[in-house]
């Protein structure tokens, strides 16, 4: 197993003996990120939960808005700072996430988690890292970026390939300079530019054409629309990067987070429990089957 997992449920929020019972968390801060995308900083109302709650980049929580239901949202912050706050960047798209629109500081929501596998930050030490993401695929990788920056010397060349529909849809634009300074080459691209945009126009997989990779010592971490990931994987494999070094974070209909409601299955996997992060060699035979 290449991905790492927090060992037991003892770090989790929620009630082990009460199915789907969340722990309450208070909204501390709300930051608009882009059109229809907002970041929420949350703190558990129960100090005991706040103390034991621990997570790793790539994992997710089930966020519960009473009356609306739950949605799987990954943590988008730095594991070792954020003052212990849980940071969720949410695209307000469907019923539950749209309901977060009306939250204000001091309101509470429910959280269960963390769930799922995480980015293989240990396993890829010493390697060059290509982080390829699109749109709302960046937040689940931001925690990994922070972790890499903190121990920057332990990794080789690190490149962030990031794409969004328009310049206005790029997330965390204020941070790119900090990331560049910290030794992460940020390459951004948009589908459609505007009058202010001087950067690249095109899709994320195309960014592979602008630099060389050493396939044996390169790891790819990718998250974003499935069609984008398919082409990222294609470009990475075409450069002879082994499938075992390509890590994919999948989105499926996750409902329980614990691998027994059945909704997020793909082949033998429950994406919520065995994923969302998979090395592509474990995923390959199923990922490429249409409508599976």
């Amino acid at each position, binding site marked *: 197993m290449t991905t790492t997992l927090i060992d037991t*449920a003892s770090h989790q929020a929620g009630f082990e003996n009460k199915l789907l019972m969340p722990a309450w968390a208070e909204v501390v801060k709300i930051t608009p990120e882009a059109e229809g995308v907002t970041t929420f900083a949350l703190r558990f109302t129960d100090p005991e939960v706040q103390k034991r709650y621990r997570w790793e980049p790539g994992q997710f929580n089930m966020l519960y808005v009473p*009356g609306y239901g739950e949605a799987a949202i990954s943590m988008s912050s730095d594991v070792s700072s954020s003052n212990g706050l849980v940071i969720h960047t949410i695209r307000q798209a469907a019923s539950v996430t749209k309901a977060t629109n009306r939250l204000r500081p001091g309101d509470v929501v*429910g959280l269960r988690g963390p769930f799922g596998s995480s980015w293989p930050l240990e396993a890829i030490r010493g390697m060059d890292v290509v982080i390829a993401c699109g749109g709302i695929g960046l937040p689940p990788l931001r925690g990994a970026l922070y972790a890499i920056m903190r121990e920057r010397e332990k990794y080789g060349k690190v490149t962030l390939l990031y794409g969004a529909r328009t310049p206005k849809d790029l997330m965390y634009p204020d941070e790119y300079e900090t990331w560049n300074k910290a030794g992460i080459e940020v390459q951004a691209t948009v589908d459609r530019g505007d009058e202010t945009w001087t950067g690249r126009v095109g899709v994320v997989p195309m960014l592979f054409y602008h630099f060389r990779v050493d396939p044996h010592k390169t790891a790819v971490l990718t998250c974003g629309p499935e069609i984008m990931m398919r082409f990222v994987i294609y470009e990475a494999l075409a450069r002879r990067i082994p499938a075992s070094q390509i890590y994919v974070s999948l989105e499926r209909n996750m409902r329980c987070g614990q691998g027994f409601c059945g909704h997020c299955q793909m082949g033998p996997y429950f994406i919520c429990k065995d994923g969302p992060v998979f090395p592509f060699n474990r995923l390959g035979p199923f990922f490429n089957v249409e409508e599976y």
Partner: protein
Amino acid sequence: MMNEKNLTIGSTVALPKAELDHLLADLRSNGYQTVGPRLQDECIVYKEIESLQDLPRGLLSEQKPASYRLIQTGQDRYFDFIPAGQSWKQFLFPPRQHLFSAQKNSSEVHAEGHTAGRNTKWQIKADDAPTPRYALVGVRACELAAIAVQDRVFMRSDFTDPIYRARREGLFILAVNCLHPNATCFCVSMGTGPRHKAGFDLCLTEMDDLFLVEAGSELGLSLLARRTYELPSAFVQTAANRATELAAGKMGRSLDTSDLPGVLTGHLDAERWNQVAKRCLSCANCTQVCPTCFCWEAFDKTDVLGNKTSRERVWDSCFNPNFSYVFGGNTRPNIRSRYRQWLTHKLGAWKGQFDVLGCVGCGRCITWCPVGIDLTEEVAAIRQEVKA
């Protein structure tokens, strides 16, 4: 009468049929809710039974794809039919389950930097209904195997469903050996029946004038010891063995399990999937009658203004249109992909997930499919297509 001291787990005794009534009464006085087969709407359902009187008598069943009929035999026998559309999973994994409710209580906000107004807080209250303690009466070998399959789903080492566990741990299983398999039965193929091996508290084999009862647990043993019984004669034991052997030879269907995950999961592009999609209604009946299907959905039920909400769990199905919906698309948008998911999961991916196949050969999905789609036939067709 035999001496109590001679009885051990594994012992078999001959019990007069009327004694079963006392056994049920004992279970009830020990706090168990006895549930078993009852006749309702020309069919067999699993419901609460208070005494032997409630059990249907003298009935055989005849099953075919999309058809279940009961036949009166007039015999003084209780367990000759094969169970119908319901399964025991409704008692361990209820079709509807209240989880918790939450009530809004808003408070004024005066904190600096915050917009003045009211803040939304919630009071949560977990469901506190007591867990029922069930004694299941008349569990067949395939059904017991199905419970064992669901045990692996709901009670894993890394996660356990508290609702299932609480009900499972208090369970008493009064098993019955099947003597009259039907045309849709194939438990022999799946290695699950028709004869019980283990996992029960007591196991009956029904003869014309008595039950042969095997004790499978301490609890079963102690209940049995309180009854009036005799040592079974060699003749009766031979007859019972012969009956269960004969039953094994009366399977109406068979399923070749060799290379099973592979033959399905390796041929996700088979033409047969298109063919079966034309016949399948995507109505979810197969998944609901299946004793191992475990998918569920949770949702909120609110009052008009959304000040109160109640969260509930219900049975779901991979045949439901929004089952695999994610924002922006549906992973399995048509009947072909849904039927394929169901069959490749049940007889394929299940093995990787829980180290057992998801099918126990009870035949419910064949009998209770309104258009009689037969999974043994579908698997055989795919085998043939692959071979060609």
